[in-house]
């Protein structure tokens, strides 16, 4: 069985960094499929992996090939897409990564997205963990995966806007085809404890606070050198809290 974790939050709250650290930690327990489902960030950089073609691009190419009549009539398009997904997969010893790319443009993707869901579903089965770094709208989760989510980890900074966005995501996920197990909130960049207003908002929204993470002093240097987030030292606050989160998930 594959344990599926979705990490989501509004831009700039450190969501990709936390997703990368969770992936790195889980890769010590099993093989992980990392899904970069946020076109505005680069999960691959955070993990120190290169990038191949995106899934979105593979789907566009398929629709283009269909339009131009470039495919063999007898080879099923599902097979063609399966192959292109495998070609888009970035493979490393314990972590494989797929970047979803941009959501589809105008036009019809009913058939293409259906095929994509089947491809993704078949691929995901082969991993112990699937971790998705999602943009706030979670468009990719709703359209391209049928996978049930075991843990939804929403990330916020200690601002009312961030918390509201996290609460909205918790609501949003209910409307999707996916079933969600547990929903948690982690608040990043917290200085001297949570402000009272924020604490109250978390309670009012019924969010389950799993961790508060202080500003990480090592992060700036890493960013300057352009090194992957997973190279944060063991005693870095982000690393320590990521470990706690994995433990609290019971993984």
């Amino acid at each position, binding site marked *: 069985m594959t344990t599926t974790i979705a990490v989501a939050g509004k831009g700039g709250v450190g969501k990709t960094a936390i997703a990368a650290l969770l992936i790195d930690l889980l890769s010590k327990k099993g*093989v992980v499929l990392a899904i970069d489902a946020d076109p505005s960030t680069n999960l691959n950089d955070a993990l120190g992996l290169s990038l191949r073609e995106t899934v979105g691009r593979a789907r566009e190419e398929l*629709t283009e090939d*269909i*339009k*131009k*009549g470039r495919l*063999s*009539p*007898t*080879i*099923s*398009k*599902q*097979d063609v897409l*399966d*192959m292109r997904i*495998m*070609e888009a997969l970035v*493979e*490393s*010893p*314990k972590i*494989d990564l797929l970047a979803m790319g941009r959501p589809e443009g*105008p*036009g*019809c993707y*009913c*058939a*293409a997205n*259906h*095929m994509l869901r*089947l491809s993704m579903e*078949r*691929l995901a*089965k*082969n991993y112990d963990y699937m971790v998705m770094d999602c943009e706030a709208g979670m468009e990719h989760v709703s359209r391209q995966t049928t996978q049930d989510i075991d843990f939804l980890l929403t990330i916020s900074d200690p601002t009312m806007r961030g918390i509201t966005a996290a609460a909205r995501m918790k609501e949003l996920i209910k409307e999707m085809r996916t079933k969600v197990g547990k929903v948690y909130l982690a608040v990043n960049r917290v200085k001297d404890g949570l402000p009272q207003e924020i604490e109250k908002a978390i309670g009012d929204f019924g969010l389950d606070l799993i961790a508060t993470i202080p500003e990480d002093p090592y992060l700036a240097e890493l960013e300057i050198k352009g090194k992957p987030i997973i190279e944060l030292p063991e005693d870095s606050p982000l690393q320590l809290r990521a470990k706690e989160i994995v433990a609290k998930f019971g993984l």
Partner: protein
Amino acid sequence: MAGIFPVDVGPQYEGEVIRKGDMYVEFGGPEVKSKFELVTLKSPDEVENEKIEVVGPNIADMKEGASYPMALMIDVAGAGLEKDMEPVLERRIHLYTNYIEGLYHMNQRQDMWLRLNKDSFAKGLNSLEEIGKILMFLYTSEIDIIEKISMTFITDEKKVEELLTEAMKIYNERDEKARGLKEEDVEEFYSCALCQSFAPTHICAITPERIANCGAINWFDGKAAYKLDPEGPIQEVKKGEPIDPIRGEYTGANQLAAEKSMGAYTRVYLHSAFEYPHTSCGCFQAIWFYIPEVDAFGIVHRDFAGETVVGTRFSTMAADTSGGRQVEGFLGLALEYLRSPKFLQADGGIKRLVWAPKEIKEMYKDVIPEDLYDKIATEEDVKNVDELVEFLDRVGHPWVKGEVELPV
């Protein structure tokens, strides 16, 4: 199977993906230029039964973690075998290799991709002969009309490259033949309900001569998808009796429409835009639209952003066409349908086309009769229906001149 072969064999290994981290070697795939697999039917005296030949380096000579060229050529003979079965037998390579523990096969033909994992290599699946033996066992035990079988694995890059040219010719011939498949040749059509969430009364009827409106699912896709997921959105439909073979009315397709449109439509013409045209979802690639002033048709595709000759854009027209309704004179369809010999044959087909965006005309130049090509107006020739009437008169469009005969 334990004992006979170094690794386990069975359907439980299907769907097992071999990750690069676990891979011993791979053959073909994106890293390798020359690769293919081919099954050929031969006469019994041409096949040395159960012979396995390896040309080029074998697995033991290979570097762990590396990618190699591969041509897998299987020859079969048997009184009950027919030439048409070659592609079917070839597709079994995919099935049977995936039955083998620690082997992972993807794709087919010149895109084949085979991975062997470290565990199975260590267990003794360490030569192409070993793989060949298991494959032969599966072929002969599952398909008893195979009387003789032999296999050649070629890993020598030059040799694979040479043979690939020949193989490509065979693949192209097969595709040509598949394109020639007719509704009369088959008993089953397929239906696709993928768009029903948008258009609840819409159901796509897919025949060898009518691809789904979105252009993504042809008859072969339908067949493959149904086999893969018999409970899925793509279902097999009995063709039934032809009521009107010209208009493309079949008892099976009528029944399908009645059931899936919840009684809204009980008849459907697969090859006419009049009376009972096929319903349109929201996913069609193009709209085939009636222009009453000239009693002929125009076509516009999704990518065409400008105004059509009748003054509306694709988006506006799409709103009137879509939603799973039968709208006489308006048909959402796949561009590839233009290649069908039955393309709206009851109405005159492509010979009744008088206006099309330049892009479509160029893309489908090969299916437009040569003497008609310059007589179909584009956005560059005319801006409105008045200009179209004048254009058609000037060039002498055969439909307007009354030279096109409708089939009876």
